[in-house]
């Protein structure tokens, strides 16, 4: 039992109260969002030293709303609520989120939250990869007020993010994307309730002429300390007309962007090989979503 030291369970009524509790309890406090990640840690005996649990469910952070033409996702929004939001269900640009949220089983979708998933900074999770491809950023609140950090800067290392002590994640922001943008996400898993062996998210934006004006390519699942943005792939795509050949050559470039790990679940070489295939397939899927005929 990893958490026999827990003495107190707090249910703050606002984000401000959360900051006060963090200030009061410091390292002895752990934030509780959906709890799926946290319980997983505790089940593995990783909760020693935790004395106070701060449950965020009453802190008013459960929402999906339009913000600056894009989306603001409250930290306590569950996967299911996010998946059922209109923007995620209907648009091509946020489709990577739709894809990513189809993988976990119902119980996880009902329980896991956007904020909990992102703040856990696991290199194996799915949603962060999709959010990275959408240029997401993180809004946090701390003693010195709110601030925004790009997701790219948020993820630092295995299970480590860049927020300072006393700060916590309140919101994920997704910017408005240019018209003719579409995204897609794909994941290799062993069974349907698994952490990714490899996952990929892509986003492409086409210009008037149908050329690839912008692209984001993100790989996760054991390819680095955090999900990796594959800039070499993006470079191949930019300015080019989408085609199978283009996507294939972009996918081949991923080799120079990632350093996949070898572990008991798969070798680095295999992760690399699958990343290329999934990348090509994800690009094709995104292009399909724009109604583009792919030669």
């Amino acid at each position: 039992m990893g958490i026999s030291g827990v003495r107190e369970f707090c249910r703050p009524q606002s984000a401000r109260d959360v900051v006060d509790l963090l200030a009061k309890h410091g390292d002895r406090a752990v934030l509780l969002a959906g709890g799926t990640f946290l319980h997983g840690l505790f089940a593995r005996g990783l909760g020693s030293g935790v004395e106070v649990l701060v449950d965020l469910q009453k802190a008013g952070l459960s929402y999906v709303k339009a913000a600056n033409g894009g989306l603001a996702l409250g930290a306590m929004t569950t996967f299911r609520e996010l998946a059922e939001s209109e923007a995620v269900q209907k648009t091509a640009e946020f489709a990577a989120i739709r894809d990513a949220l189809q993988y976990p089983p119902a119980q996880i979708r009902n329980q896991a939250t956007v904020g909990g998933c992102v703040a856990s900074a696991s290199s194996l999770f799915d949603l962060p990869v999709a959010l990275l491809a959408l240029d997401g950023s993180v809004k946090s609140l701390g003693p010195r007020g709110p601030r925004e950090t790009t997701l790219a800067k948020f993820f630092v290392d295995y299970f480590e993010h860049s927020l300072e002590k006393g700060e916590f994640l309140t919101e994920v922001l997704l910017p408005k994307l240019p018209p003719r943008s579409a995204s897609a996400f794909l994941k290799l898993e062993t069974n349907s309730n698994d952490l990714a062996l490899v996952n990929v998210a892509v986003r492409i934006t086409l210009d008037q002429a149908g050329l690839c004006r912008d692209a984001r390519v993100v790989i996760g699942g054991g390819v680095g300390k955090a999900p990796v943005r594959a800039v070499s792939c993006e470079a191949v795509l930019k300015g080019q007309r989408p085609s199978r050949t283009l996507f294939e050559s972009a996918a081949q470039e991923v080799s120079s962007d990632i350093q996949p790990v070898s572990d008991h679940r798969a070798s680095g070489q295999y992760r690399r090989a699958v990343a290329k295939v999934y990348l090509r397939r994800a690009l094709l899927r995104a292009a399909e979503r724009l109604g583009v005929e792919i030669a």
Partner: protein
Amino acid sequence: MKQVIALEVNGERHEIAVQPSATLLQVLREELDLLGTKQACDAGGCGCCTVLLDGRAVYSCMVFAMSAQDKKITTIEGLPKDGKLDPLQEAFIQAGAVQCGYCTSGMIMAAKEFLTSARAPSDPEIRQAISGNLCRCTGYHKTVDAIRMAASGR
């Protein structure tokens, strides 16, 4: 230190003292004697402990009891109405979907939530709905039959 909380389980209100670290699963089984909800992995990996929290299927081993205050909890014991089995329970019997039965409570609770919104679900949708529940006996084949049967019998 234990804290006293109120939980509404199967329509009944209980005031109980719980450790702040206690999971909903522990409280259901150890404090409320609701032994129909099963523990098999205690780490969100098997689905045996699935219950409904405000109508949503969750792994009760991953919910703190303290977080379940003000929410309606439904366990397998809460499904029969007026002494009659829930159609899903009846379908699990009729389809032969029960073997050792240890996963059955969780399986039925996952299916219960699914059928509140799914109309005429396809087999792949049914399979997706129970993909968070492991079963080592049945190969899920008759479980899918049972859920399909319950869905069409409404």
